[in-house]
């Protein structure tokens, strides 16, 4: 079957399409990451939940806003100080407590408690300085706001312009205030830089290999719980492939067996299969999903954290719905093929019906299986998001669906890193699968209308 396909004209046409080859290369890259994660366990689900940064730290090498930087620095100092105080009160060794604060590779500096205390005091001093800077800037911003509003009311015919300051004066005032705000921002910036330097001495960035690992963990920022978005996003590649390939394999298998049998044997087989097909396609997709949510609620699969078994509801939902399309297509093709001369010739020689079906008919529909496989992978990856939103999706491990479903809360807080990374990675994978299935269709089935 495969050998014959390799010699076919369609495959040569497919290989000639440069863009399809590039897309295949990208799929290979994604697949390599999926293998690294899934087989070699480079990233474990535990990595995905561990705290690596303060909550909602921006990614993509973006510098956070001044307020965020202030908040983050205070967060670092505060948690070390809490542990020091706790150890002092209980008269216990502070080291194990400080080790709890480690952000994976980024541990609290190996300094004696007195030295740490000293650093913290220093940090609070600088922090107070920065705080004053913020107060000053807020006052300036208030003034600026008032002046802007006053300027705006000059244009309002209802207000009495005599009570307002003249326009020219206001303009000059605003300009002056703006410069002052800028200057004060500069001051805050320098205070924060000093503060961050102290923080780096309390909890220094790791160096060498550990440093590289830590950079990888942090370069896409963190979500609400402070866990790494990059780890989550890359782990999800494995989940996407797992969901896509398992679903597509099962559905193509069921679809091909039923479709080929229905078309080739006809009669009651055909009637039963077509009844099943029309029944399944008459249930609105989302309604079926909703019913499955209800069906699986509280069952073992709903509560288990086993990474494979917890996906059973998801596979059930996909397999119930997705085989229908493949079945229809294969049935149509087999109906055509079984009237061809070579099938009649095989029958006249006296081959059995099963032998003809497996040896002569199904191999000639292989291209459709490949096209459908590719389309089903796309369908599964995209639907996983919707299922996860409805509560039927991936549990116990990260997935793009979970990241995007979380996205609404994050976006409202102006944190686009989680939804952004998940969308971009998913977009890439779905896009290349789209390109490959288009190219497959063009190469093997040029007359087909999408």
């Amino acid at each position, binding site marked *: 079957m495969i050998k014959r396909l390799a010699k076919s004209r369609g495959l040569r046409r497919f290989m000639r399409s440069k863009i399809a080859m590039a897309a295949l290369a990208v799929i290979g890259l994604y697949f390599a990451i999926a293998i690294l994660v899934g087989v070699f366990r480079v990233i474990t689900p535990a990595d995905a939940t561990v705290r690596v940064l303060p909550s909602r730290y921006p990614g993509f090498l973006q510098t956070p806003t001044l307020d965020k930087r202030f908040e983050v620095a205070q967060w670092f100092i505060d948690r070390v100080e809490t542990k020091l105080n706790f150890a002092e009160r209980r008269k216990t060794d502070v080291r194990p407590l400080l080790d709890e604060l480690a952000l994976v590779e980024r541990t609290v500096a190996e300094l004696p408690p007195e030295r740490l205390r000293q650093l913290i005091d220093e940090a609070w001093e600088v922090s107070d300085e920065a705080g004053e800077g913020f107060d000053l800037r807020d006052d300036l911003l208030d003034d600026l706001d008032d002046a802007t509003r006053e300027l705006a009311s000059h244009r309002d015919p209802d207000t009495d312009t005599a009570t307002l300051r003249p326009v020219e004066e206001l303009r000059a005032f605003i300009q002056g205030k703006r410069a002052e705000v800028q200057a004060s921002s500069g001051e805050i910036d320098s205070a924060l830089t000093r503060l961050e330097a102290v923080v780096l001495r309390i909890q220094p960035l790791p160096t060498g290999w550990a440093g590289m690992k830590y950079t990888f963990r942090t370069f896409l920022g963190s979500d609400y719980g402070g866990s790494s978005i990059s780890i989550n996003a890359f782990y999800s590649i494995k989940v996407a492939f797992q969901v896509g390939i398992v679903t597509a394999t099962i559905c193509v298998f069921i679809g091909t067996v039923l479709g080929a049998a229905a078309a080739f044997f006809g009669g009651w087989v055909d009637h039963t299969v077509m009844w099943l097909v029309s029944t399944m396609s008459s249930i609105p997709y989302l*309604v079926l999903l909703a019913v499955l949510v209800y069906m699986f609620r509280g069952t073992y699969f709903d509560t288990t954290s086993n990474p494979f078994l917890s996906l059973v509801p998801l596979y059930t939902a996909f397999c119930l719905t997705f085989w229908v399309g493949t079945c229809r297509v294969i049935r149509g093709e087999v109906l055509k093929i079984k009237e061809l001369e070579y099938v009649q010739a095989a029958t006249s020689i006296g081959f059995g019906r099963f032998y003809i079906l497996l040896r002569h008919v199904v191999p000639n529909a292989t291209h459709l299986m490949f096209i459908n496989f590719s389309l089903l992978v796309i369908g599964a990856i995209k639907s996983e998001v919707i299922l996860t939103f409805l509560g039927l999706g991936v549990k116990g491990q990260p997935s793009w669906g979970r990241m995007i479903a979380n996205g609404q809360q994050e976006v409202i807080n102006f944190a686009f890193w989680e939804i952004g990374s998940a969308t971009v990675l998913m977009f890439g994978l779905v896009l290349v699968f*789209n390109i490959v299935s288009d190219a497959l269709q063009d190469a093997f089935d040029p007359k087909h209308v999408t």
Partner: protein
Amino acid sequence: MWAYVLRKLLYNIPVYFGIILLMMAALRVNDPVNNYLGKHPTPEQRLALEKDMGLDQPFIVQYVMFIAHIPLLDFGDSWKYEGTTVRERLIRAVPPSLSFTVPTLLAAAMISIVVSLVSAYYRGRPVDKTLMILAVLGMSVSYLVYIILGQFFGAFWPREAQWSLAPFAISGYEPWIGMKDVEGGGSAFFFSPTTWVTYCLLPVIVGVIVAMGYDTRFYRAVMVEECTKDYIITALAKGATKRKIMFVHMLKNALIPIVTRVMTTLPFLITGSILLEMFFNIPGMGKTLITAINDNDFPMIQGFVAVFAAVMILTIILTDVIYALVDPRVRLS
């Protein structure tokens, strides 16, 4: 003609019974009473609910009883919202769904047809290629991302930044057309397009953008295929202009598959887009169903599923009939 419709109906009745059978069985896999009352209900509570829905009877009796009640939409009372029937809640959920699904469907179909006509007219040229690349790119982004970002940039951000132009509500729904009780008795007709714009236009825009990618690609493929047919070559040979061929000869024939496709998306009118309704908090059919599922409101779920499946089957029949009507080549046998 009527014989054809009747035959289609008769053929689809076993299909419908099959769906109801599957769905009723699926809904009873988990004990509905336990789902609603928690793990340890008192025997009295249990008995009351079981009597209410006839759950104490054998499955086959329940099945027959349920099917007998479908024509009257008599699905019992809601468990969660005592005193309201499922039918009431069903009917109440229809207008919100329709008020954004109808415009979405119409706008998506019209814009997609225009875009695909442009694409097919310039086929093989940069315009066509750009449009098709855009369509593929658009198809590769998740539906949820469109909704979340659309809601953020369309409604949340303008409000947060206090722009003077922030026409959309972040979420919610208010009736914008219908009859309203007037103080002192009687009722009056009211119609407020601004309310519609506030609550429904943004979901419509998001829905149209999502549908555009798939529709445009399909319509273009249909049109391009039509363009290779013999009658187009004949028209060219007799000297008709390209524009006339595209808009008069080709479009008429291409409309057959297009109409079929639009018809197949019709159930969307009733089921609404569950996701759009959830995110924009529109109390339509989809959101009501999801709420019922979260509340474990068994009679509601069962009733909604039955209605959705019926609507779906009716549209399938309607599609076949219309297909036969617009295309005389299809034989009614």
